[in-house]
């Protein structure tokens, strides 16, 4: 176990607790935040990562088979999502983008609820209050403000609930996440800005969005930040816990840049062969979050056949449920197109619906 200290983010340095080869390195500032992570927890983190990757593969297959309209894979980002998602309390509230299926998994989402949006059945797979997670957000960066506002609400309520917002490296260029930092800093909102820097915004490399390390932006707004190895589940956990602790104890927002890599396409519609360098991708393959934890488990003698067998069986089981759930989803009712535009129907919309109902009736009894 080598020793290493990584307190400041501004030099572009990276908090790491697990090296790509699985070696656990000590870090004076961060170790204590994961001191409680025992063998069982390590194994369960591993299981979660394997399962969400398996869900991802299954969903991609479903899309290829025409059962989903689209799917945004998270492969490569399991540690960033599970490491942070697992540290949250049930009452914390998540405002994510569209790629955080791993986080949703940690929130206890139903498998079928993960798919409704991508099968085209709804704009929100779940009731946000059931799992304290907002629906996927397509407008890049928008949700950072929502998290900040939610956090202000928690502050006003006098509770130690925290809001966390997930967004990508590309999102950092938008106005909203910058305004969110201004508001969060100004009101010392208990919010965490969790940026998964997966190196790409569709075809655009992170260098087009940011000339300095992304984590270095926050301090200029008066927000402390950390830059962590996003493929290192322990480092991500530690950083998120630091941020949660700061927020819960009334010390305001924190910004985390989790440096990771999007191993797959942007979505199933994307063709990364047009822009991704194979060598770059291979380089990141060697830093894979799952194999890294696997190596560490191995080094601790925890990677037994029995254990991996059980994990894979669980993953297969989940995948089967995902598929089954997907195929069993009931399409929405035609007239539900008019529902929930307002909390109560308006005269105008009722009339519109009414005329449409009349119209649909002309097809019955075969006009």
């Amino acid at each position, binding site marked *: 176990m080598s020793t290493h200290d990584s307190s400041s983010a501004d030099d572009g340095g990276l908090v790491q607790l697990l090296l790509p080869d699985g070696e656990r390195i000590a870090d004076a500032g961060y170790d204590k935040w994961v001191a409680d992570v025992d063998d069982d927890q390590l194994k369960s983190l591993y299981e979660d990562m394997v399962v969400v990757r398996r869900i991802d593969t299954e969903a991609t297959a479903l899309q290829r088979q025409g059962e989903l309209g689209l799917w945004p894979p998270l492969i490569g980002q399991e540690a960033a999502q599970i490491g942070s998602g697992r540290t949250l309390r049930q009452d914390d509230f998540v405002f994510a983008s569209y790629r955080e299926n791993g986080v949703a998994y940690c929130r206890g989402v139903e498998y079928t609820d993960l798919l409704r949006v991508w099968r085209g059945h709804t704009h929100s797979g779940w009731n946000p209050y059931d799992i304290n997670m907002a629906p996927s957000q397509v407008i890049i960066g928008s949700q950072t*403000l*929502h998290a*900040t506002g939610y956090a202000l609400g928690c502050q006003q309520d006098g509770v130690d609930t925290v809001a966390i917002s997930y967004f990508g490296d590309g999102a950092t260029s938008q*106005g*909203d996440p910058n305004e969110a930092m201004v508001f969060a800093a100004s009101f010392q909102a208990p919010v965490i800005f969790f940026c998964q820097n997966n190196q790409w915004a569709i075809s655009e490399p992170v260098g087009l969005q940011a000339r300095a390390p992304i984590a270095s932006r926050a301090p200029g707004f008066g927000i402390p930040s950390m830059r962590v190895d996003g493929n290192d589940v322990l480092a991500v956990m530690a950083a998120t816990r630091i941020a949660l602790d700061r927020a819960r104890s009334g010390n305001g927002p924190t910004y985390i840049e989790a440096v990771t890599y999007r191993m797959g396409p942007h979505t199933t519609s994307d063709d990364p062969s047009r822009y991704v360098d194979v060598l770059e991708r291979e380089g990141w393959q060697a830093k894979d979050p799952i194999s890294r934890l696997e190596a560490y488990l191995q080094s601790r003698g925890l990677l037994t056949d029995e254990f991996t067998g059980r994990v894979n069986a669980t993953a297969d089981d989940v995948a089967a449920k995902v598929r089954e759930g997907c195929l069993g989803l009931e399409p929405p009712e035609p007239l539900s197109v008019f529902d*929930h535009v307002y909390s109560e129907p308006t005269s*105008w919309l009722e009339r519109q619906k009414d005329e449409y109902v009349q119209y649909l009736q002309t097809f019955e009894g075969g006009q």
Partner: protein
Amino acid sequence: MSSMTLSRAINSGLRRALEDDPKVLLMGEDIGTLGGVFRVTDGLQKDFGAHRVMDTPLAEAGIIGTAVGLAYRGYRPVCEIQFDGFIYPGFDQIITQVAKLHYRTGGAVKMPLTIRVPFGGGIGAVEHHSESPEAYFAHTAGLRVVSCSNPQDAHTMIRQAVACDDPVMFFEPKRRYWTKGEVDEEITGQTPSIDSAAIVAAGDDVTLVTYGPLVATARDAAIAASDEGVSVEVIDLRSLSPIDFATVEASVRKTGRLVVTHEASQFGGIGAEIAASITRRCFYYLEAAPERVTGFDVPYPAAELEDHHLPDLDRMLDAVDRVMDRHNSLSGREG
């Protein structure tokens, strides 16, 4: 009942809303210490504290976006946009989030935001301080859009807006802020409902439809028209989305003639919707094509030119003459 300005009536409505519901919060630029550039929130921060009447950083997307988060958390934020022309940096949050979240979540998440916008011209202001952007919002499903024209409505409607579970764009006719009127602050509840129109002058020959700042002008026009023997019914829409078409329709069935007037530009404005909808609903009752008297299709001009842009009493009367087929500016021309 007490006599107060329209601005004061909103102030007192907001005060009641803050008293009635601890989840109500006011947010905006300069609304706290200063009490707002129009003093609409005067004294409220002092009485309710900086947590409930929040001066925010200077960023409209930030204001609306954090209000969305607060609404997720069960709050009822009332956001002030300082002037009409400054709403656009917050447009994305309004259109893609505020308007859609209730629908997006199948009704699970409520967005009871009220977005207050002092709007309209006629005050000799510099650029971006005199606009009438209501049509953008009226075209956006999921938003309610209202405008008040007198102190009583201002008071009642702001309270109804804050109490409404839907997002409400609340357009305040800034050039009427200092209009005085009697206000009954004890009125509570939902009558008249926030989305009903009001007949503010009865008449038989022509229906003149308007809202917000031009209601007063339209009433004057009705008086002037009656001097010339034309009986004009003036309707204050109050709600621009949805529109209380039943009231307008009943009036036009009676008069057979419709003039719509608003400050906003004509092309694709609210007037077009009213003309189109009423034509459909009253086709066989119409004696003349509906006329529109509106701001021209130009960016809002410099202050010295605004009188050549805004509808006024004379232009309204000219349109009344047109639908009455009396001598008017277009006599002798076709269509």
